[in-house]
């Protein structure tokens, strides 16, 4: 009876082995994006706190502009990444299915 289970792999392990090549780089990317967005969010909160503490708004306005344009460029680049990945993966899947059908 023991010998029967020796060669078997659990469903979770099998699933993870299957998705690992795709999930791991996605997680690493996600972590980087989260850190960047977190930095922009914290900078925004910090500037708000400075304003409430009574710092000169005209001086803070320059940093607010930097924070805003940083957020805009990060969101735009994130969108570009997402768009390109979806397009490239879709084309790859289409080409592979076409090849399989042909063979």
């Amino acid at each position, binding site marked *: 009876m023991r010998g029967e289970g020796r060669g078997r792999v659990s469903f979770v392990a099998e699933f993870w082995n299957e998705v690992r090549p795709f999930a*791991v*780089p996605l997680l*690493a990317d996600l972590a980087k994006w989260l850190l960047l967005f*977190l930095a922009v*969010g914290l900078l925004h909160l910090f500037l708000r706190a400075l304003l409430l503490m009574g710092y000169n708004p005209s001086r803070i306005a320059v940093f607010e502009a*930097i924070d805003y344009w940083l957020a*805009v*460029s990060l969101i735009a*680049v994130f969108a570009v*990444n997402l768009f390109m990945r979806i397009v490239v993966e879709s084309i790859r899947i289409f080409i592979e299915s076409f090849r399989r059908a042909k063979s």
Partner: protein
Amino acid sequence: MSAGARFQRLHRLWVTDNAARWKTNYSIVVCTLAYGLFNSLVLGRNESSVTWEAIGLCFVLAGVSSVRYCFQSSKKFRGARLAGRDIPVLRRPVLTVMGAAAAAIFVTLANVVPFSGLEAAVVDERFRRLSTGNLNDARLRKAMEMAEVSRKLNIRAHPSVVSKFTRRAIEASTSKPELRALAWQTAQACLGYRSFLNPPSPAKPAPTDSSMSELGWIVSISKGRHAADNLMASFGPFPFTVVSVKIAAWSDTPYGMAVYEPIGTGRNKGINSGPAFIVLQGKGGDLALDGLSAKHVEFDNLQIVYRGGRVVLQDVRFVNCNFRIEMRPSGVTFANELLAPGRVNFVSPLS
């Protein structure tokens, strides 16, 4: 090189070659940031149009980078491929854990901690501190700045704290000649912030019929669509800065009807039913009160101008307005009336 090989490179850039992708990402972020900052700070261009241009620029740069990556020489490419890991392996597990943990904490804090309440508490405390002790030049400037910043950031302090400080500023403008101008300016900024704290009335548009007079639009309002044939209550003339007139309630008695007309006109005599409360909405433009009789009216997002002339205001509200009041005895009384809890009742000259 075949099209298939070029596509493989494209796939590698956007999916597996982390080093090349992040290098491209950082370059695009730097270019977009520089473009946005230059256009908004140096050229002073409109922010919304520059934002769309910046987003477009990102896509163009991504396209250029893709073409460059796909068409670079094989020798160079081989070197780049060897330098960066082409196999998808999590190279920095610590970074992943740190990023995910920090984001989770941030999201939790943003949902659990009432940031808006905390900010309002800070503004309350600052106004309280400014209210105690002698008012001087520096304190008045700080309060004015505070009122403007809090309004801009949509921070809602407690109205009574703002009212208390504003009363002191009005008092200082009359009792301290050296602070007269600054104290009055601060009082007007605080009055604006105080009106920003008033919640707007729920009002809806009513069937109206409007005609043009020399001074502006006169609007006639009916209760329902089928009542247009009856004699309708009319209001005005409204300046062009009033962009819409809405009603919040209806009255079937002449006494309960709203009034908005030049003093002594009696336009709605003989009309037995009409709006019980009207809301005038603007976009920050001027509305002069001198010579006006208004009853059961809300002024929303307008700059209220009062030069100290005759005016009759009964049961009037000001929501998110700015004030430009001339510093005369009637102006000072009006400013104090604006701070009264509830709705504003003010008649000038006092009979």
